[in-house]
């Protein structure tokens, strides 16, 4: 079946009233799951799976997938309003999104997140429907050396996140690398830095670190600075609650960047939405005309990562639907759902189950529009959360953070870790260490170490494997370029100072 016939058939399936309804239900649930911590898309889908046994496979997969991408839409809400990531892929959004909210542009930030999600999400879906099979082949050509180069590129971007002091930024990064290696070593089962604790064997969870150093730290800082009754200004009037033309214009490049970076990284089974959002943010900053303003609340800093984590959806569905390979927990559960319904995800699914395949793809287009319509009107409503007086709001953030941390593994231990990371973040803020490099080091460190060790095992210890492969070499050269980009003005200044 060729693409257009397939899509046409898909729309005829997806537009059936019952499927439309299930799509709406999925998107709505997904948005809620994304907004509320404590409920991840994977757990929600697992919980709802038995209820879908009686549905047709097409309706079932349409609804469950709606939860998957709807959650990515909703994840930015708490990032922007409370500096508390709702999903791991929305961590980067905290950096500029929360700063925008502090400047009274919370509504604008939420609006931009929704628009970026829509644009990049649509790009991902179009790319999925047009070039799924060739892209799947591309994804397979990615091996450990390429993953290493990708993570190295991500780490190089840290230099840009470092803020005033490069040394402090790098120290924060290294601490992040250390935190991520806590736990069992995959290759040898050696336990590292676990202090004899069973609870640390599986390592620290990204969400606990991120909620700790962002949300808990923010509450402690603002209590310490005694910010008065209302945390953040909320402008009056509907117009001020949505992004204005200048802000949208500033995001032009970010929309494209988020779309492409998010989609490409999404296709790779070994990466994931959080890595996509970090790299997209870094690239946005590297090529910005005012990189120094990142971190102070620029709209591009919201658009790029939010776009990337939604374009990631379209990418991540490609290996799932064309090869039967899940890239993460949520896609793994979608895969087991498909198997339960008797659909066989794999290379033959497109031809053997065209209803499910194309129906799902078409429902993604519809769902994406639904999400925009669902989310934009909620923006002014959500922005009102900031009117809650601090003596209620701050404990509320604590409560929500606790739920987020506890839901990771159901252990009180994790809540104590959360408190620990809150204290660490607070100390870092007082001592003027940036936290973003720490979080980035945490996300990338593990994957980077793994890729390096895998590469060297493949090449029997020969380092040239990293530079003898074109994609990997290209990315490493780009990473080196990124490293030197911001150093240039520094050197110039040094020279001037010397003469």
């Amino acid at each position, binding site marked *: 079946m060729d693409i257009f016939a397939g899509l046409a058939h898909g729309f005829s399936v997806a537009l059936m009233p019952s499927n439309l309804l299930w799509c709406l239900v999925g998107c709505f649930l997904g948005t809620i799951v994304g907004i*509320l911590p*404590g*409920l991840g898309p994977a757990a929600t889908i697992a*919980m709802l799976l038995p209820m879908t046994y009686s549905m047709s496979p097409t309706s079932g997969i349409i609804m469950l997938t709606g939860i998957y991408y709807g959650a990515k839409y909703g994840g930015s809400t708490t990032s922007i309003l409370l500096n508390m990531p709702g999903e791991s892929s929305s961590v980067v959004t905290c950096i500029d999104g929360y700063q925008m909210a502090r400047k009274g542009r919370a509504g604008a930030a939420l609006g931009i997140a929704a628009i970026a999600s829509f644009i990049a999400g649509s790009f991902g879906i179009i790319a999925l429907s047009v070039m799924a099979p060739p892209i799947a082949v591309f994804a397979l050509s990615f091996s450990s050396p390429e993953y290493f180069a990708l993570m190295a590129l991500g780490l190089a971007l840290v230099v840009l996140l470092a803020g005033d002091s490069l*040394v*402090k930024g*790098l*120290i924060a990064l*290294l*601490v992040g*690398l*250390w935190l991520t*290696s806590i736990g069992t*070593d995959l*290759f*040898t089962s*050696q336990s*590292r*830095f676990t202090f004899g604790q069973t609870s640390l064997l599986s390592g620290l969870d990204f969400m606990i670190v991120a909620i700790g150093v962002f949300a*808990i730290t923010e*509450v*402690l*800082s603002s*209590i*310490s*600075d*005694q910010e008065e009754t209302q945390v953040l200004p909320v402008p009056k009037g509907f117009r001020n609650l949505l992004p204005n033309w200048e802000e949208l214009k500033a995001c032009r490049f970010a929309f494209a960047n988020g779309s492409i970076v998010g989609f490409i990284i999404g296709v790779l089974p070994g990466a994931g939405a959080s890595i996509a959002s970090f790299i997209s943010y870094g690239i946005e900053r590297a090529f910005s005309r005012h990189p120094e303003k990142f971190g102070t609340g620029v709209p591009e800093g919201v658009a790029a990562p939010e776009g990337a984590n939604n374009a990631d959806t379209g990418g991540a569905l490609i290996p799932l639907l064309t090869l039967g390979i899940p890239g993460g927990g949520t896609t793994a559960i979608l895969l087991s759902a498909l198997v339960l319904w008797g659909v066989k995800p794999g290379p033959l699914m497109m031809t053997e189950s065209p209803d499910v395949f194309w129906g799902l793809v078409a429902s993604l287009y519809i769902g994406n529009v639904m999400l925009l319509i669902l989310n934009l009107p909620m923006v002014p409503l959500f922005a009102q959360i900031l009117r809650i007086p*601090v*003596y*209620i709001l*701050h*404990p*509320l953030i*604590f*409560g929500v953070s*606790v*739920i987020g941390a*506890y*839901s990771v593994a*159901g252990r*009180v231990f994790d*809540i*104590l870790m959360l*408190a620990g990371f*809150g*204290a660490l973040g*607070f100390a870092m803020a*007082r*001592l*003027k*260490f940036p936290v973003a490099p720490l979080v980035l080091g945490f996300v990338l460190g593990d994957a980077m*170490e793994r890729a*390096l*060790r895998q590469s*060297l*095992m493949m090449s*029997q*210890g020969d380092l040239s494997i990293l530079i003898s492969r074109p994609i990997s070499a290209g990315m490493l050269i780009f990473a080196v370029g990124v490293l030197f980009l911001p150093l240039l003005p520094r050197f110039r200044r040094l020279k001037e100072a010397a003469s």
Partner: protein
Amino acid sequence: MTKSIFRDGDVIAGALTAALGTYITVTAARWDVMGPEGPGPGFFPVGYGIALIILSLILIFQRFTAARHTEEDRPFDWAGFRRAAITWVAFTASTALMPTLGFYISFGLLTLFLGLFVFEKPVKSALTAGVLSAVGFYLVFDMALDVSLPAGMLGF
């Protein structure tokens, strides 16, 4: 007044991270750094451990050379720090209570405590906030969403 350089934030932080770097390097060096099948579990940590020591020393060194002209003489905000510290201790204590009292009661108590002692609200508003927050969370997360949270002796 000139502060002693040893009480400078960067110097303290640098000393701490240098100590962390030393711990990492020493611990990781005991594991296989390079095994017969490729780099071992100690390979990466030894690398970033040493880098951490070097960077920490640079941080301290920078402070000694540049201390004179970049020193900002804002006194440390002890009152603010105390408020944050009380908040943190209360938060941690409420967590420690969760296995006995359950999430909802601990959380209500935390809200009450912060309202009274950190935000210095009247008893009535703090109490209202505590009770309403706990009940609100119960309604949303337990009744509506069925999220499992630490349960206490009373079963919720």
